[in-house]
């Protein structure tokens, strides 16, 4: 009854149970971290703004993003996914969300960044509602932990407006 195999099995079972418990505690410890991220986006230029042949508005922007997301990182953080979304309201849909740029931050050292870029993904409306449209730019992030629950949050920056005329 108390053979080599039985002892090895008992040890493995107990060790893995404790490991699961440790992972759960590591995940729980993330709740004690109260992050204070900052972000700022400036739209530098509207490169072009036109109506596609199929009737949809499309705009190309140049902007720079500066953000400090270092406080999101804890010992249980694998990486952070960030994306910048343009959000606006149209008569048909109360919430339109278009992803303009995204990135993966692999470590805390890279979490304070400044980037000057044009939109990585096309800013196209479903329809022709973008002229003179006021929109928000929100920096969303998803904190991906090594074990446990994923956290997501965002910073909304409002007060952007598209021009009245195509160019």
């Amino acid at each position: 009854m108390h053979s080599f195999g039985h002892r090895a099995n008992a040890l493995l079972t107990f060790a893995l149970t404790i490991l699961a418990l440790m992972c759960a505690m590591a995940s729980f410890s993330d709740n004690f971290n109260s992050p204070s991220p900052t972000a700022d986006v400036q739209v530098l230029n509207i490169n072009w703004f036109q109506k596609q042949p199929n009737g949809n508005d499309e705009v190309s922007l140049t902007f720079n993003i500066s953000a400090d997301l270092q406080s999101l990182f804890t010992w249980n953080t694998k990486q952070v996914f960030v994306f910048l979304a343009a959000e606006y309201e149209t008569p048909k849909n109360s919430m339109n969300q278009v992803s303009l740029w995204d990135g993966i931050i692999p470590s805390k050292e890279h979490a304070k960044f400044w980037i000057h870029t044009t939109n990585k993904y096309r800013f196209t409306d479903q329809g022709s509602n973008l002229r003179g449209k006021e929109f928000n730019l929100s920096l969303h992030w998803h904190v991906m932990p090594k074990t446990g629950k994923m956290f997501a949050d965002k910073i909304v920056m409002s007060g952007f407006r598209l021009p009245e005329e195509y160019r």
Partner: protein
Amino acid sequence: MDWQGQKLAEQLMQIMLVAFAVVAFLTGYLMNSFQTMLLIYASGVLLTTLITVPNWPFFNRNHLKWLDPSEADRHPKPQISSTNTGSKKKSSKQHQK
């Protein structure tokens, strides 16, 4: 492995694993390193395996003392026909099975 050895192996295994887990978690948390936690715990599990799984000599220090056959012959088993309380209990137990 004798009875005392089995008890010792079992207790040693549980205490060592829990101790290593506590040390690993605190070190990892304070050093802000998940990897450190895993490395300390893995080495702890390995050490515990080496100590408690093989049948080391120190688990066999309390040998079982079997009765000599001649001693057993001198005290024969009580017969079932001799009705005393002991045999009644035995029969009732067998019923329950």
